[in-house]
């Protein structure tokens, strides 16, 4: 299974973390520090897999961001590499040519999308259209609620004029 997902910038700044196995706060900080040291120093022509604490970390760099997923020793590494790519493609589609800044200011969206892609540390949905539809449905729900809330407050405002 995927134990955690980490998105870090080239400078080691965390852009997203999602933990599917129980790591305490202290442990999380340690993990992030160790993996940043291990991965950010790897050159471009090396393979996308590192061995760490008896586990494997599959990572891929997209522009200024490193997408990392930690899996078990006997999991299929290439499959995870393509899950990472799948996530990036979905983000790209949602934001329209995504860049790091999008993920910084809209980190909450990145989490919504991830929750439609992975669950319990496994792939949940491999159809991009389906994910896009789901996320956009969620967006509408939020928009509708906002409108309702503002229309209610308008009504109240009118009534109490």
């Amino acid at each position, binding site marked *: 299974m995927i134990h955690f997902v980490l998105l870090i910038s080239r400078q080691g700044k965390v852009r997203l973390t999602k933990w599917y196995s129980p790591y305490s706060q202290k442990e999380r900080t340690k993990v992030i520090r160790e993996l940043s040291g291990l991965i950010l120093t790897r050159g471009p*022509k090396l393979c996308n897999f590192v061995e760490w604490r008896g586990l494997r970390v599959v990572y891929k760099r997209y522009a200024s961001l490193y997408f990392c997923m930690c899996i078990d020793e006997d999991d299929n590494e290439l499959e995870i590499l393509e899950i990472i790519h799948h996530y990036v493609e979905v983000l790209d589609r949602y934001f329209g040519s995504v860049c790091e800044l999008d993920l910084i200011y809209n980190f909450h969206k990145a989490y919504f999308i991830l929750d439609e892609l992975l669950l319990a540390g496994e792939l949940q949905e491999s159809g991009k259209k389906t994910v896009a539809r789901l996320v956009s449905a969620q967006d509408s729900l939020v928009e509708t609620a906002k409108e309702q809330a503002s229309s209610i407050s308008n009504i109240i405002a009118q009534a109490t004029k």
Partner: protein
Amino acid sequence: MTMHGMRGLSVFISDVRNCQNKDQERLRIDKELGNVRNRFKNEKGLTPYEKKKYVWKMLYIYMLGYDVDFGHMKAVSLISAPKYPEKQVGYIVTSCLLNENHDFLRLAINTVRNDIIGRNETFQCLALTMVGNIGGREFAESLAPDVQKLLLSSSCRPLVRKKAALCLLRLYRKNPDIVNVDGWADRMAQLLDERDLGVLTSSMSLLVALVSNNHEAYWSCLPKCVKILERLARNQDVPQEYTYYGIPSPWLQVKTMRVLQYFPTIEDPYTRRTLFEVLQRILMGTDVVKNVNKNNASHAVLFEALALVMHLDAEKEMMSQCVALLGKFIAVREPNIRYLGLENMTRMLMVTDVQEIIKRHQAQIITSLKDPDVSIRRRALDLLYGMCDVTNAKDIVEELLQYLSSADFTMREELSLKAAILAEKFAPDLSWYVDVILQLIDKAGDFISDDIWFRVVQFVTNNDDLQTYAAAKVKEYLDKPAVHETMVKVSAYILGEYSHLLARRPGCSPKEIFSLLHEKLPTVSTTTIPILLSAYAKILMHIHPPDQELQSQIWAIFF
């Protein structure tokens, strides 16, 4: 760059990013945390929008590496919000900040359960997602029956059932007893008839876990899995959406083959033949293409097929096809494939006797030991270790020793240990073994445990012919300008016992041996001193006739 959301949040993020240094950032964060704490004290005055905004801010602050413990309760409390936008934030932030060991997560169980059994599909999804991501044992006990119901309910849409499958997987991992095996075998077989590939993929992940614990109960699923694999491999009936760069749902193919690896055999000849045809086609038909993603996806399937072939311990022909493929892979330029080639070759060693065929690739594997990529070096080391036997031990160990001098720190311990084990296991003759261990101590003394040098001493003690050789060898090392403390230990012991055998050689008189040892005394730690002292005593004992001068010199040290 589209701004999808809360202005207050964006402004805060900009503020933080504009801080010039860590101190400024800390100040800004503390200010915000103080503000949020205050606003939450008077919660009645907060609008739902504001609550959301503050909880998101807390997640952002948490991602920067700061402590937001007081925020945990707030996030959890949003789970009970009546409206979707707040509830969503509550569920997601909770699943980011907390884990199953946080006690007060338990407080949310009732609310979560209400959402799961309620009629609101979006709420169900939120709840299933959170429980699937961070649910623990208690969630398993309380919610498993409800989640199971959703998974099996024909009135639930695929979206919900997909999440229910993976949620159940998590709960099962936390407490395997929640799945009553007797009932589930048939249900899993039914789930495999599912048309929706999202639900099927999730169900297959669940099946992997169930089968890994108890394959006997799930035999009925075996032929269905083979059928699914066949359908995918032939690209029959696969919706365009689930075709990834031309490969029909590679992830589902991989998962299905993973399930099959938990069944020890395939009894039915028809099923067996079908499966082998599929596997044969994958093995022979996976070409290298330009598109990286298509390549990765098709090779992910290929490597899983390889694992399945190995597991089935198929006909000799198929196995040699596999080794031939792997032999190609370990020599390609693409580092991922090289890595996986080495890893899978190592796995093959556990299976039948492919050792001889693998040995043909020894030269390439040794080259990989020196690859610029530490991940590949590690795989090469594992493989060399696994393929070592009496015929190639000398070559392999000597390569390892040579590599040890330039190896990076992180690999030295493993390298030394493996070399020591191989040397002992497969030594063509004992003097070579002694050489190897002494070289190891010389090059990587820090990583050579006492066990290792004790064993050398044991061998030397039990083999008279070895004793002169060993004594001469350790003296050579002691003559060097820099000597590792472990070398001093083993040398002191051996010279103490056997240096008298060298007495006639130039530079090896008892006096000279004693001086050689004694000059190390000031440099060693307390654990080594007793060994040195007993060496002096032993040297004295072996001198006939006794040497008065040396005797008084040595006695002076003791008294």
